[in-house]
């Protein structure tokens, strides 16, 4: 396999001694789509900030390929009301020619908003603008922090499809955070379940059966996700507990995982 675009080795981030991210190992290659899921406060945003270099790590190393162009889509685009700014000007600040900016906006479905004031855009339009802004720079690695925020349910599926298509067009790696578990499970290549440390990681079909995943998200979520893949390879007792599991490819666990695996 070629060298990874970015490699995290044993990365920990602590704020005033309080751990936010612990001992994470992760490599993203061209063509990968990783989705990070996890409960609130699990360190998802901290982890991707460490990955793009916005957050200093307390321990471990972050190696980015030389000359790596990162397309970053932050959680939100909140512009001071005192700053007049329209979509075209914001795109032009990427340093790319106008034709490219226009194409990127059209690609994310908001080509008609070129002259619109950013303050007037809806949440979904802002997310598409941020995606266009990231993509106009022809990134090697696309990093998205909850890209589907403020997007309605139909739009979310379209957005995740678009991200997949962009991965193919740009031949880039993708790593994103998402709360839309159902869509993630249906659309992503590999899922990382984070709760400060990597609880479990693997292919969506496998991970939804993983005890660590069930610990984190509860049975009802895990079951409803499993349905998506129609892999009924476990059963439940009267209390709903998983009594047996025979996943073909067991999900990989983080080295520092100490869940009770029954």
């Amino acid at each position, binding site marked *: 396999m070629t060298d990874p675009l970015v490699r995290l080795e044993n990365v920990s981030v602590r704020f005033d001694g309080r751990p936010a991210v612990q001992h994470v190992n992760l490599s993203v290659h061209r063509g990968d789509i990783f989705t990070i899921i996890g409960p609130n406060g699990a360190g998802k945003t901290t982890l991707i*900030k460490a990955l*793009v*270099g*916005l957050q200093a790590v307390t321990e471990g190393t972050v190696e980015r390929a030389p000359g790596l162009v*990162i397309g*970053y889509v*932050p959680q939100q*685009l909140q*512009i*001071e009301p*005192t*700053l*007049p*700014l*329209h979509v075209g*000007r*914001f795109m032009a*600040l*990427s*340093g790319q020619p106008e034709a490219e900016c226009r194409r990127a906006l059209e690609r994310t479905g908001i080509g008609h908003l070129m002259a619109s*004031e950013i*303050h*007037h855009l809806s949440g979904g339009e802002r997310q598409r603008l941020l995606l266009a*802004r990231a993509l106009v*720079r022809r990134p090697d690695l696309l*990093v998205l922090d909850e890209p589907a925020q403020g997007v309605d349910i139909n739009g979310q599926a379209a957005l995740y499809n678009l991200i997949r298509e962009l991965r193919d067009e740009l031949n880039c790696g993708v790593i994103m955070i998402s709360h839309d578990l159902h869509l993630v499970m249906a659309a992503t290549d590999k899922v990382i379940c984070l709760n400060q440390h990597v609880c479990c990681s693997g292919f969506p079909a496998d991970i939804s059966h993983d005890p660590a995943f069930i610990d984190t998200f509860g049975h009802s979520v895990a079951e409803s996700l499993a349905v998506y893949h129609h892999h009924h390879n476990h059963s439940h007792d009267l209390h709903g507990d998983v009594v047996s599991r025979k996943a073909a490819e067991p999900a990989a666990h983080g080295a520092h995982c100490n869940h009770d695996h029954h």
Partner: protein
Amino acid sequence: MTIIDSVLNDFFWRALLGGLGIALVAGPLGCFVVWRRMAYFGDTLAHSALLGIALSFLFSLPLNLGVMIVCIVLALVLVSLSRTRALATDTLLGILAHSALAIGLVVLSFMPHVRVDLTGLLFGDLLAMSRQDLLWIYLGAGIVILLLIKLWDGLLMSTIHEELARVEGVPVEKLRLVLMLMFSLVIAVAMKMVGVLLITALLIIPAATARRLARTPEHMVFLAIAFGCLAVGGGLTLSWYLDTPAGPSVVVTAFLAFLFTYGTTRKAA
């Protein structure tokens, strides 16, 4: 005697030229103050200018230089202290602003041989502008404008979204430092005109007025310069005919333009 000489020999024209030079840089920098919510920060730097003057007398430095040095040191202290988050930023600014002003006044009182026009320092003495002051203003303005043109996109990008700018490789910290230096420079040269207590007004009011009419950041900058020039011209005229203090008259004119704009126009965007 040439026309230029006769213009420069007239205190009114010197005041006007100096004021316009300051408006030229107060426009763009004022926009950044408004965009980045740095109004109180600018005020704190301005208050510290008096300490700069006191120290200049103490160490017999040129006034402008002393003011600049104190402003820069204070800006650096503020940036590093606000990172520790031990106190809320506005509390920190409040402490430093008034302490710097008070220390400046106390230090001045220890030097009875130095006769300082305190009113002039606090509220400005635009009409006492010398040829040398004009030189300082246009030198400072030239440097600031060149820097702004060269660094514009990076400054704007880091103002819009600091994290996005950082990921895209904009040297956000360096630009913040350059912006602080430019503020210090402008405060040092503008102090003479409007005084330490009114400098922030000259930065903020024209920019806020321009916001009402502007469609793009650059448009807002040019409008802010125009409103600044209007305030200087109007204020000096007011001062000339009604014998009012020049600095406050400039600020009052800027405020009237602000009220008029907000009263008569609809928001552009």
